[in-house]
C-alpha cells in the first residue's frame, strides 16, 4: 500500500468514529428514556399508559422495519431541515441517530424488564415514587444489561455508518466502495475491513469489560 493512502485511511477512520460516537450519544439520550418508558408504561406497570405504550411501540417497530439505506434516502428533507445540508458526515448523523433511538430503546426496555419484580415491590413498599423507582432501582439494576445493549447498538452503528456513503457521509465504508471497488484497489478494501474488524472488537471488549465492572449479581473474588 502506498504511503499516501495512510492519511486517507486515517481520515476515514476518524469520520466513522465521529459519526458513530455522536449518533450513539444522541441515540442513547433518546433511546434510554424511551426504553424505560416502554418498559414501564404497559398496563399495570409503574407508569401504566397502555395506549401510549401501544402507539410508541408501533412507531418504534415501524422505524426499525425500514431498511437503513432506505431510511437514509427517505428522510433527506428532514436531514436538510435539521443540519442545513443532506451531504457529509454531519448529515449522516441524522439517519444514524434516527435508527439508533428505537434500537436502543428496545434493548433498554428488555434490560429493564429483566429486573426482578420483587425489587419494584420492595421499593413501592418503601414509599418510593415511580420516578425514584426508575432512577434508584430499575436503571442501576439493569445497568449490566443496558451496557451490553449499548455495546450491541454501537457495533450496529459501525455497520450502518458504512452505508451513509450513499449520501456523501464519508467514513470507512465509503472509502472501501470508492477506492476498493470503483478504483480497483483491493488493498484499500482489505485495510478498511481490517480496521472495521479491529474497531468492532475494541468496542465489544470495552462494552463487556464495563458490563462486568457494574455487574454485582454474582459474588466476586475480594481483592482479586
Amino acid at each position, binding site marked *: 500500500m502506498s504511503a499516501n493512502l495512510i492519511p486517507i485511511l486515517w481520515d476515514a477512520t476518524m469520520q466513522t468514529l465521529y459519526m458513530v460516537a455522536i449518533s450513539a450519544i444522541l441515540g442513547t439520550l433518546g433511546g434510554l428514556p424511551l426504553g424505560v418508558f416502554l418498559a414501564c408504561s404497559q398496563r399495570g406497570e409503574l407508569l401504566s399508559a397502555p395506549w401510549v405504550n401501544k402507539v410508541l411501540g408501533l412507531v418504534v417497530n415501524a422505524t426499525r422495519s425500514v431498511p437503513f439505506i432506505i431510511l437514509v434516502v427517505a428522510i433527506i428533507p428532514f436531514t436538510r431541515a435539521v443540519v442545513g445540508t443532506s451531504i457529509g458526515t454531519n448529515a449522516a448523523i441524522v439517519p444514524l441517530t434516527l435508527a439508533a433511538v428505537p434500537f436502543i430503546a428496545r434493548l433498554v426496555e428488555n434490560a429493564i424488564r429483566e429486573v426482578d419484580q*420483587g425489587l419494584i415491590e420492595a421499593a413501592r413498599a*418503601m*414509599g*418510593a415514587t415511580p420516578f425514584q423507582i426508575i432512577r*434508584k*432501582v430499575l436503571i*442501576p439494576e439493569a445497568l449490566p444489561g443496558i451496557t451490553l445493549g449499548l455495546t450491541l447498538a454501537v457495533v450496529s452503528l459501525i455497520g450502518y455508518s458504512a452505508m451513509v456513503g450513499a449520501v456523501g457521509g464519508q467514513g470507512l465504508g465509503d472509502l472501501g466502495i470508492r477506492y476498493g471497488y470503483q478504483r480497483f484497489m483491493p488493498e484499500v478494501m482489505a485495510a478498511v475491513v481490517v480496521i472495521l474488524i479491529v474497531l468492532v472488537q475494541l468496542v465489544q471488549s470495552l462494552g463487556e469489560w464495563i458490563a462486568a465492572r*457494574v455487574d454485582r*449479581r454474582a*459474588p466476586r473474588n475480594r481483592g482479586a
Partner: protein
Amino acid sequence: MTGTAQGAAISFQGVGKAYPKAGGQVTALADVTLSVPTGSITGIIGRSGAGKSTLLRMVNGLERPTEGRVIVAGHDVGAARGGALRAIRRDVGMIFQHFNLLASRTVRGNVALPLEVAGTPRAQIRARVDQLIEQVGLGPLADRYPAELSGGQKQRVGIARALATGPKVLLSDEATSALDPETTQTVLDLLAQINRDLGLTVLLITHEMAVLRDIASHMAVIEAGRIVESGATYDIFARPQHATTRRFLSGVTGATLPAFVAARLQAEPPGDQVIRVTFAGAHATDPMLARLATDLGISANILGGTIEEIGTKPFGNLLISVPHDRGDQARAFLETHGLTTEVLGHVR
C-alpha cells in the same frame, strides 16, 4: 383479637378482595375482620393460595381491598392515594421471602435506600445506616454486596432496611421460608428481639406452624380467603377449633403418630382407642396418666408425645392408647381435669 380497633395497630374491617375474571370474578378474600394488637407479633397461617399474602399486602397498600377497610395507625390505607399512601408506607416496613435486595448496592446502600427515598439528609443517612447495620449484627459486612452474603445475612439486611425509616409496623412475607431451620431460628430471634426492644408491631404470614409457636403471641388461620380461627397463639395451640388449624398443628406439636401406629390405624373398633391428649397451662405438668391408672385402673399405653414452650407457657401433646371399651371413661376423666382430648382411631 376481636373486631374492634381499640389498641390495634392494624385492623381489617370486613375486608374482601375480588378479581375480575372472564365470566365472573375470583374471590381472594371474603369478610376478613381481624385486629392486630399494638406491640404484638401476630401471625397469619394458611396454605399457598389461601389469601394470606393478599391480606398482608393490603396493610401497605400494595393491594387494595374491594370491600371493607384496612386501618393502619388510624389511616384508611385502601382509601389513600399518591403522597398520602407513600407517607403511610414509610411507617410500615416490609421484609420478603426472597429478600428483594438490590444486587447493585452494598449492604450499606441497600439499607440507605428507604432513607434516600424519604429525602433524609446525607449525613444523617450515614449515621443511621451504620447504627442499623450494627443492630442486625452485620457490622463487618457493611461494604459487601448481597451476592456475597448467605441467606440469613441477606434477610438481616432486609430487616435493617425495613427498620430504616423507624416504622411502627413490620410486615413479614414468608421471611424465613427460604432459609434453613437453623438460620430461620436466628432470624426469628432477631424479629422477637426487635419487637421487644422497639415495641414494634409485627404482622407475619407463614405456612409453618413452628414459626408461630416460636414468636407469635397472636395468630389467625386463613382458609380459602376467610379467617377460620383467630386468637392468642397459646389458646389456639391448646384448643384448636377448626379442622384446618388441627391439620397445621399436627405437623408441629410432635403429635404425629409413629409410622407403625399410623399404618394400622382404623376408624372403628376393635382394638385400642388412640387418643391425642393436649396439656395446656397449669395442667401441663400434672401427672394425669398416673392418676388415670390409680383412680380408674386404666393403664394407658404411650405412643408418642412432646412438651414444649409457647411464649413462656408449657404445652404438651401426648398420644396414648387405651382399651376401646374404657376410652370414653378415660376421656371424660381427662377432660374434667382440664385437658383436651381427641380420638384419632383404633389400633389392634
